[in-house]
């Protein structure tokens, strides 16, 4: 655990609805260094919004507040639009869930990667092309020259997601937020993509925030795990010590997961306690 890369305290994201103000993220806080941090939660727990808050790319109508939002000594709350633009891509990046939607349908895959590189680097078009090809190789795409000229709808889900990773890592950022990066992929492809992500993140000494609903996946992949429920962090734990989790929600989640070895008759279901929604 190196010096802290990201510090968040009391993060709150709220939306104005027809019935008043609804808080989707209620005082989330954590610190991370160049490690792999997992954020686990069900839909509506606020995990995706937490990720987007770091990049300050919230949907319209959302209000962000925090007492502290600092990336590598840069105050993200006070940063202006120009500063954020310089940070995004170059130092902060995000891989989204479904490459069918997160890639521009009318630009070739290679061109989109080259564009990510050129956004923060003065280089010629051919240099950018070379870099894009190199990135495609780095994500283990076997025929980078052919794939470079393909459109997003012409590549498979796994390849598209690898291209997305290539695109986000091209400018060599320090922190990568992966928002459900494998949820739209087949199980076999999931493992491949995760392995690539793991290698690249470790190679480059990056920080990774891995957002998912899959507790076991996150635990096997990350160093630390944050469990979110109802907009709050209910538990922070080392991935290796997941079995020792203390919060009833986490324990409930663990108990619900079926294992290959089989178990004791009926699968447990999660019993929700409204007390978990109250402030700790």
């Amino acid at each position: 655990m190196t010096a802290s890369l990201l510090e968040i305290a009391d993060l709150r994201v709220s939306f104005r609805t027809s019935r008043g103000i609804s808080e989707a993220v209620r005082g989330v806080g954590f610190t991370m260094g160049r490690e792999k941090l997992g954020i686990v939660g069900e839909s509506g727990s606020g995990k995706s919004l937490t990720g987007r808050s770091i990049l300050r790319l919230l949907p319209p109508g959302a209000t962000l507040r925090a007492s502290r939002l600092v990336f590598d000594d840069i105050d993200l709350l006070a940063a202006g639009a120009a500063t954020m633009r310089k940070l995004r891509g170059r130092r902060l990046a995000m891989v989204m869930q479904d490459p069918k939607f997160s890639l521009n349908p009318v630009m070739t895959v290679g061109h989109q990667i080259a564009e990510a590189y050129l956004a923060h680097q003065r280089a010629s078009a051919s240099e950018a092309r070379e870099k894009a090809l190199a990135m495609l190789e780095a994500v283990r795409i076997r025929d980078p020259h052919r794939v470079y000229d393909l459109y997003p709808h012409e590549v498979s889900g796994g390849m598209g997601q690898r291209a997305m990773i290539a695109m986000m890592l091209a400018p060599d950022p320090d922190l990568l937020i992966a928002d459900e990066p494998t949820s739209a992929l087949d199980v076999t492809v999931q493992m491949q993509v995760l392995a690539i992500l793991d290698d690249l993140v470790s190679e480059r000494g990056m920080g990774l925030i891995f957002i998912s609903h899959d507790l076991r996946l996150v635990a096997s992949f990350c160093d630390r795990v944050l469990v979110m429920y109802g907009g709050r962090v209910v538990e922070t734990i080392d991935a290796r010590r997941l079995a020792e989790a203390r919060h009833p929600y986490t324990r409930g989640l663990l108990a619900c997961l079926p294992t290959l070895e089989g178990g004791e008759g009926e699968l447990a279901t999660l019993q929700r306690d409204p007390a978990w929604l109250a402030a700790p």
Partner: protein
Amino acid sequence: MSSVATAARKRPTPPAIRFAGGVLRLLATVAFTFFGLLLVTFLIGRVVPIDPVLAAVGDRAPAEVYQRVRTELGLDQPLYVQFYRYAMAVLSGDLGRSVLTSNPVLTDIKRFFPATFELATLATLLGVALGIPLGVIAAARQNRAIDQAIRVLGLLGYSVPVFWLGLMGLVLFYVHLDWVAGPGRIDVAYEDLVETRTGVILLDSALAGNWEVFRNAFAHVILPASILGYFSLAYVSRMTRSLMIEQLRQEYVVTARVKGLSEARVIWRHALGNVMVPLITVVALSYANLLEGSVLTETVFAWPGIGQYITNSLLSVDMNAVLGGTIVVGAVFVGLNLFSDLLYRVFDPRVR
């Protein structure tokens, strides 16, 4: 026969064949539509209360003459035979003879069409050149003041009668400000000074290098083209805006922002790029709508195009000319729809 086996045996149709199939379906629809157009114009021609035989022979002709002319005109045949004859005639280019000019209607139309083409094309160019940027800006600044202003500007274009705006424009820009020339396509002094090669005076004079005629023609066309262009602008900007709004909601826009691209690049390169293909349809439809609006505009500006031809024929109840003009404009209308559909198929990498 298990369904799995059947499924495994079916090979997906290659994209080229799918494309051809789509084109064929389109052509079939167009043919059917044109057939409908012919049918409707035929029926309209038949509901005219004036008896065409009487019109030809006069109301004092004896019965045998009446019968003879009736047979000559084919009016004693059953309706479907008459329609068949009519359709065949139209398809071979015979739209009848104009009562007013005594020329074949098709000849008249060919003479008047370039003027309408000139006006509609110029107007569409203006409308698109201004309408697309306005629509993009409105979408990028959705719900803010500039967006509301652009929307109202567009809505006004849907609310104001084109002939009235033309009149008011003439009063303001011609009579009071003297910025443009008056009604008509060109000053009488310059008529026929330039050889007619395309029928479009602006092009002909430019090709001949006669800049005096060009300037005069321009002074005449600029006001009606701007008025019609405004209507094109209203439609194009509105469509562009709604298309852009939908695009700006997509995930790839978030990706582009995550990459740290400038907002301008996100909007004009990424989002707009996804809108170009549907915009082609919008432009083609805008052109088609302008052809309609030209009927009224040409009347106001004494512009010698198809619109004025149809209107004049209408007032003298020259049904051949009216119906002939309707068929031609209708055919162009339908043709434009087909053209835009084809373009859509050709350019969208996903539809291919």
